[in-house]
């Protein structure tokens, strides 16, 4: 089983215009070519009456046969489907599931149902939809919906990157950004939109909801890991509406806004006009989300570190220092401890507590002996108080670092992406859930 390609970021994508509000049910119809406008003529209606069943049938076949995490034939077939195809199949599936429920409520064993001028035996329809009697009677398609969401997530992650540009695209354009520069155009992926809309139709069920949450966690981690802020935008907004008190979702939502406030994204976003909110707005959003995440789970040290850093960026240094002190005391693992010490150093420095700042920077340097950030900070700290010798000494330590350093030597460079390290783990867990038959 392959896992999601949670690879290092090469470029990032930003959505153009406002984030799409998540439509209910099947979603708003996509923009389609004139020739394919629905019900434009009787002949088109007739064509649709012939087309819906093979389309639905091949989609359900793909859903059932796809091996989660793999680039198999079902996933490849789905990769060439258009936004319109997906809209139609969603419309048909939801309509037929509802039809099953209605028919079963009227008669325990309806013989034939008619849909889009096509008569179909009820048992055949139920079989086509892959629903048990009980599922059909309650319009509970959770099992199919979860598998389908995973299939379309896999298509977005594993198949679309292999196809020519434009495949899997919605009508909404995005810009591609690298090192703060716009380097091209992209689009919002239809498979993520489709996945979200499918999961919106889940019937209340604890296990299904847990799996859906996992799908959102994993896919958010993936999007942030590869720098796909365009798709992340509606995705995380949607997840936030569904799970408003989930600390993990709150955290990821905060990370999204924190990342968006970074210079890496802000300059390009402002210049290209895709985002007029500005860094301050994103930082305010991030602060609120991290605060809620910590409130929901006081042991969520990673959220506390991010909260402290954002507070510092907002100029609330006393609050930042308090939050980071608590984080530094409880942080596990060298990387999280490094962040806590480095950020606490900056907060203390801003408060004029230079000795304390120096201590924290030194602790950060001890945790990562090849990191340049704490050494630069120590040099600057010394220079600020007129200690030229101290400033030069710290610079000499920087010079003494190996010439061929790598970004991993200094976790600061991974700060905006580090939380997504769990991307592969999360997908592994999600795939295992499906493989084990748990929903």
């Amino acid at each position: 089983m392959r896992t999601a390609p949670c690879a290092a970021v090469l470029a990032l994508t930003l959505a153009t215009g406002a984030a799409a509000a998540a439509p209910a049910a099947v979603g708003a119809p996509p923009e389609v070519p004139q020739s394919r406008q629905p019900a434009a003529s009787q002949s088109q209606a007739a064509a649709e009456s012939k087309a819906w069943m093979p389309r639905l049938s091949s989609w359900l076949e793909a859903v059932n046969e796809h091996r989660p995490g793999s680039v198999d034939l079902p996933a490849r077939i789905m990769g060439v489907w258009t936004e319109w195809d997906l809209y139609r199949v969603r419309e048909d599936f939801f309509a037929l599931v509802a039809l099953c429920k209605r028919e079963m409520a009227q008669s325990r064993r309806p013989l034939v149902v008619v849909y889009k001028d096509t008569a179909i035996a009820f048992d055949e329809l139920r079989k086509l939809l892959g629903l048990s009697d009980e599922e059909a009677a309650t319009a509970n398609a959770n099992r199919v919906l979860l598998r389908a969401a995973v299939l379309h997530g896999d298509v977005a992650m594993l198949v679309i990157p292999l196809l020519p540009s434009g495949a899997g695209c919605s009508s909404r354009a995005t810009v591609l950004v690298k090192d703060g520069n716009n380097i091209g155009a992209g689009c919002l992926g239809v498979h993520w939109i489709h996945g979200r809309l499918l999961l919106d139709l889940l019937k209340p069920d604890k296990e299904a909801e847990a799996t859906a949450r996992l799908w959102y966690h994993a896919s958010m981690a993936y999007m942030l890991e590869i720098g796909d802020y365009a798709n992340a935008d509606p995705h995380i907004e949607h997840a936030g509406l569904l799970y408003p008190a989930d600390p993990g979702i709150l955290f990821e939502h905060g990370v999204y806004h924190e990342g968006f406030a970074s210079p890496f994204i802000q300059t390009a976003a402002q210049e290209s006009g895709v985002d007029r909110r500005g860094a301050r707005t994103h930082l305010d959003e991030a602060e609120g989300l991290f605060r809620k995440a910590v409130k929901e789970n006081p042991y969520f040290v990673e959220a506390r570190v991010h909260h402290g850093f954002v507070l510092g960026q907002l100029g609330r240094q006393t609050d930042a220092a308090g939050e980071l002190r608590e984080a530094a005391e409880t942080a596990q693992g060298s990387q999280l401890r490094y962040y806590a010490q480095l950020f606490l150093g900056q907060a203390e420095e801003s408060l004029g507590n230079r000795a304390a700042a120096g201590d924290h920077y030194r602790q950060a340097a001890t945790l990562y002996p090849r990191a340049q950030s704490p050494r630069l900070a120590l040099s600057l700290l010394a220079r600020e108080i007129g200690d030229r010798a101290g400033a030069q000494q710290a610079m000499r330590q920087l010079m003494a670092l190996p010439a061929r350093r790598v970004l991993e030597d200094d976790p600061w460079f991974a700060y905006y992406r580090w939380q997504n390290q769990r991307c592969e783990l999360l997908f592994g867990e999600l795939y295992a859930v499906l493989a084990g038959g748990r929903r």
Partner: protein
Amino acid sequence: MIRRALALTTLVFAAVALAAQAQNPTFSSKIEAVRVDVLVADNGRPVRGLQAADFEIFDNGVRQTIDLVSFEQLPLNVVFTFDLSGSIVGERLENLREAGHAVLGGLKKGDQGGLVSFNDLVVVGPDLTGNTGLVGAAIDRTEPSGNTSLVDASFAGMMMAESDVGRGLVIVFSDGLDTSSWLRARSVLDVAKRSDAVVYAVSAGLASRAAFLRDLTEQTAGRLFQLESTKGLSAVFLQVLDEFRQRYLVSYSPSGVSREGWHELTVRVKGRNATVRARPGYLAGGSM
């Protein structure tokens, strides 16, 4: 950092500075002799041959006694601070390398060169050295990739420039956009106010992106060049070197002013309607 043997002129300057400190013990630990790099121009052309008596310098409005004015006497410490992020590729990179070599070729005996290259990482070295071949080879070895830690690197460049008693010239080349620094721009600008180094910057990006470089060059009395193309980069770099050589180094020991805080500087040339470019002030109080 590596320090080479001091030239005679440098020793003379240092001796004067030390003597000044001895006479003003109240400033000995905080405000040492203040060095101000000054460019005097008349109708855009540098004015040469001025003496100490030709200058007037006011520290927070208080007239100061000038200890020394030197011109083309102190050797230069030229620190290249080069952006080697992913956006500096192809012709831009070639032009940058050529421009670096052009400046190295223009250095005189006693001058030193050094290199700070940066993308996400700031690579400091070669340190200041009279061996320009070493610096040139390092420039040729650079390979662009990654993001841009412009603020971090500018700080490192200033630190290298002031690691030796020569006159520090930092030449920053970048597309002007910082995407990955740890240090905050305002902190580095504060250090710039305390530094003797003069920063000239060449930005190959959009003007809106060059805010940090504009502030940095203003604080250090350098100059910002904004280029649409890097085709003429060598000429710009040589212009920087030439202009820096035309500058006077004015030194005085502050008196009658507070030890702390921001000191506004006003430098004038008597009897001339000349344009004077000097740093706008300096920060004192555990500063300098």
